[in-house]
């Protein structure tokens, strides 16, 4: 195969490069190459649908009053579980990613580097599935809830689903991913991608904003207008996604070169004189 290409392109094409080739062609190859995205996505989809069914069934039945014993039985353990699981993923994941960091950037071959870019994109795809689920199922469920139910404590059912699980899950996975990328991918090593940091920080800011929201609702804002100024802090999450454009370009700039090197053995970037 490589000989053909060599004749066609006039240069030697490495044959052992491709994850693509290793995974094989067709649908099976596609699934194998993107197994992280498919398995992770399916897992989060199942978790998301499961917790949404739970919310559907348990909110109006046993979730309307924090001071009822049923609430303590059916909702608080879920909250504790969420905090423990997500906290562990974030802390242990971050520590693990840091402890196992790559010490020598020079030892990373372009093939490995490109593979890591696709791994990073795989994680983003999994989080994308989760993001779409939050957008479609979670965000407005909180609006629907508050506009019919009386706000009692910070632990309303929709909050236990959104603010203590759905949104922190993005942070819990993004922070270890951020560390992973900055310790494994040469373009990110020994420096920090500002757009990547912007996305992570913006999504993380939901938590402090949530604190402000609850503080404000107990102090000066008693109505349930969803578009009220007290809620505008949460918009930071939406706006932090403006960093996705520059982040995509950062990925593309490096991947364009890597793809060229990996497939042709030559860098497609020609320096200007």
């Amino acid at each position: 195969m490589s000989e053909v290409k060599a004749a066609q392109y006039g240069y030697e094409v490495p044959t052992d490069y491709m994850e693509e080739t290793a995974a094989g062609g067709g649908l099976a190859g596609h699934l194998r190459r993107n197994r992280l995205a498919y398995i992770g996505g399916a897992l989060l989809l199942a978790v998301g649908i499961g917790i949404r069914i739970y919310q559907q069934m348990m909110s109006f039945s046993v979730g309307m009053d924090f001071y009822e014993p049923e609430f303590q039985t059916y909702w608080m353990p879920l909250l504790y579980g969420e905090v423990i699981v997500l906290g562990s993923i974030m802390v242990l994941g971050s520590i693990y990613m840091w402890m196992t960091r790559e010490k020598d950037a020079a030892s990373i071959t372009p093939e490995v580097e490109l593979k890591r870019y696709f791994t990073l994109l795989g994680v983003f795809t999994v989080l994308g599935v989760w993001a779409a689920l939050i957008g479609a199922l979670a965000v407005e469920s909180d609006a629907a809830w508050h506009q019919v139910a009386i706000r009692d404590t910070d632990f309303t059912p929709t909050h236990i689903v959104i603010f203590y699980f759905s949104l922190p899950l993005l942070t819990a996975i993004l922070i270890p991913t951020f560390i992973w990328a900055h310790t494994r991918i040469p373009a990110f090593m020994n420096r920090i991608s500002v757009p990547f940091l912007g996305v992570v920080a913006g999504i993380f800011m939901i938590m402090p904003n949530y604190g402000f929201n609850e503080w404000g609702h107990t102090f000066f804002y008693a109505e349930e207008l969803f578009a009220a100024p007290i809620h505008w802090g949460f918009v930071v999450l939406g706006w932090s996604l403006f960093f996705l454009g520059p982040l995509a370009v950062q990925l593309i700039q490096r991947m364009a070169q890597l793809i060229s090197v990996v497939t042709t053995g030559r860098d497609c970037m020609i320096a200007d004189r």
Partner: protein
Amino acid sequence: MANIALPAPRITDASGHYDLSILDNPRARSYYRRFDGILIIVLFSFLALGISIHYALTAGDWDYWIDWRDRRWWPLVTPLSLMMFIGGFVYPIWKAFRLPVIATAVTTLLCLVSWVSRYFNFGQFTDFPLSFTFPSTYIGLGVIFDSVLIMTRSLLISAIVGPFLFGALIWPLNWPLFAASKVPVEYSGTLVSVADLMGYQYIRTTTPEYLRIIEESTLRTFGGSVTPLTAVFSAFVAVIGYSLFLLLGAALYNFAGRYARRII
């Protein structure tokens, strides 16, 4: 194996040019396609999350209930909210790829997530009928906006014409969806519209009548032309909102689109 220099700190500082013959390499192309597929999924799913949060918290109430969609506030708040979010994305996607798809993508994704959400959250979860909580549509405005960008090929001209049409046409675009709920009814001796009546009948414990931010009587309506006046003002507001966020997107791309030596 070629030695690849690390990318420049700023994405806009990248120097040199590409040997485009790589674009014809089938293996490289298969990588590109794979990347395209992934980026579309990632970008679109995060756009869906971003717009649903941004929109819910800046204009959500007006879109949840038909008895909020009046002719003075709804057509003003909604285009402003949408144009802000769209503005932040147009610059990088145009600058880097010359892809005029953001407005259509955002409005279409918002439409899809809104329908899922209204059905499951307002319908199945809290039992409101869809006739009371259906989403408005903005896709036509998104397509018009993007088409203006395509035809003018100018961020500046499209920043004036695109949002102007976006704000001005929002009412006629949605009128076929709303008109049925603006038919008059007499109830307990009071004149109400069908939408008001639904707002009264379908009990919203914590969303009282007075919470609605809608048109109230003023002494002067200038010949009753509230809708066209709002359309023009809305167009103006949309241009301002869009332009500011276009600049924000540009700033993020040109200045924050970089690698820093350290965090602080």
